[in-house]
């Protein structure tokens, strides 16, 4: 992993990302470690994402590293018409690693091809966001004690949701059973279902999540966005259907955990927040440990 970019979850083997999860557990026990003394890291956010940027920057700072960069493209030379290539070439002269987010898909892969320093993809459009996937895996393993043989209920926008697709790919190494719950407009794309078929992984598709709540080990909620519907009437029909409320959770296993990549809008009622089954805020905190592990292992410090 040393000096290798992390662009897509498929860049790492199962053994490699399990090693990241083990490292993250170490950082959770002992988050402040001065491993990055004299290291300078760039966070280039060509589109704003406060949550992801703060998480990465916290990870760097907890490791004692320093940061340069920008929080959105309007404060960079992109507004003067500089190409991505030139920005990456220029920044590469200064730093030991680039963490970047970009609205165009494939931007991070392209950046990794034109520089010799490692690039970590912090999201490229609707394509990949591998640190999110790794923190989801970390959260699942931590709360369930294992990754193997779990029942995973995915609810909401399964068509456009980047996080559910990456999580599906990563979890398919661990013999899961998936329950895909979505309105018919936002079903899991057939390409992903074919992938599961080829690997003999069980999945069920439905529009109603209630019957599946008792089976779930993990409930992965996503936001159903209005702009995804061609017919506004269809949106009105489903917008309040995929909402998790505290009263619904009694039928669940005691060990179930609710995950959400955040930001949440109304798909999880705030009355769920105090329930011990709610895990999304801790999940976000886990992101810092996982990102510490990613950075330390790519820079060969762990």
């Amino acid at each position, binding site marked *: 992993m040393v000096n290798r970019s992390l662009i*897509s979850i498929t860049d790492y083997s199962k053994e490699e990302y399990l090693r990241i999860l083990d490292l993250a557990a170490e950082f959770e026990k002992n988050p402040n470690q001065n491993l990055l003394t004299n290291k300078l890291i760039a966070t280039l956010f060509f589109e704003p994402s406060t949550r992801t940027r703060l998480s990465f920057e916290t990870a760097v700072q907890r490791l004692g590293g320093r940061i340069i960069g920008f929080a959105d493209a309007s404060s960079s030379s992109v507004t003067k018409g500089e*190409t*991505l*290539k030139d920005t990456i070439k220029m920044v590469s002269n200064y730093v030991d690693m680039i963490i970047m987010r*970009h*609205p*165009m*898909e*494939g*931007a991070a*892969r*392209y950046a990794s091809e034109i520089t010799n320093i490692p690039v970590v993809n912090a999201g*490229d*459009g*609707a*394509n*990949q966001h591998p640190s999110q996937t790794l923190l989801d895996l970390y959260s699942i393993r931590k709360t369930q004690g294992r990754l193997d043989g779990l029942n995973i209920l995915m609810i909401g926008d399964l068509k456009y949701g980047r996080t559910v697709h990456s999580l599906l790919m990563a979890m398919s190494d661990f013999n899961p059973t998936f329950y895909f719950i979505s309105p018919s407009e936002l079903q899991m794309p057939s*390409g992903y279902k074919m992938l599961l078929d080829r690997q003999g992984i069980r999945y069920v598709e439905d529009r109603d999540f209630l019957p599946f709540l008792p089976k779930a080990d993990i409930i992965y909620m996503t936001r159903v966005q209005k702009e995804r519907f061609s017919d506004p009437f269809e949106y009105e029909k489903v917008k309040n259907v995929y909402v998790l409320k505290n009263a619904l959770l009694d039928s669940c296993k005691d060990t179930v955990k609710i995950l959400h990549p955040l930001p949440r809008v109304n798909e999880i009622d705030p009355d769920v927040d105090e329930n011990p089954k709610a895990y999304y805020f801790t999940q976000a905190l886990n992101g810092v440990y996982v990102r510490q592990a990613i950075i330390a292992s790519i820079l060969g410090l762990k």
Partner: protein
Amino acid sequence: MKGDDKHLVVNAIENGTVIDHIPSTSLFAVISILQLEKLNSQMTFGVNLESKKLGSKAIIKVAGKYFENSELNKIALVAPQAKLNIIRNYQVVEKRVVEIPEDEISGIIKCPNPVCITNHEKITTKFHVLSRSDMTVRCNYCEKVINRTQIEIL
């Protein structure tokens, strides 16, 4: 070039390459992939010709030019059934079929994803071949998987 009965006559070529069984709709794509517009050779293009196999086919004759296999294989994307005849001294000395490149296709296909970085910066596109039978490829950059019906030539 006019025969006695006022029909256009296309002469056989002495030396060169004849590419037959191109779907009529792919003629211009083949011309562009092989960059024929940059050649000074004598060339003949026939299009919308009757074909039992394809219904309607196109044919290209290029005098005095032999192509590398790697060049010719690029046209497999748009003309998978193309047949190549290598002509020397008016004789067909070799017949070839085109083969879809093994693993990677560089710089021929345009990514149909409007938000792919390759459509916004000057980047040579690159696609990984997933299946040669139905011509499924994955963009190296945005990772979108597309098949023959979605393939657009640059």
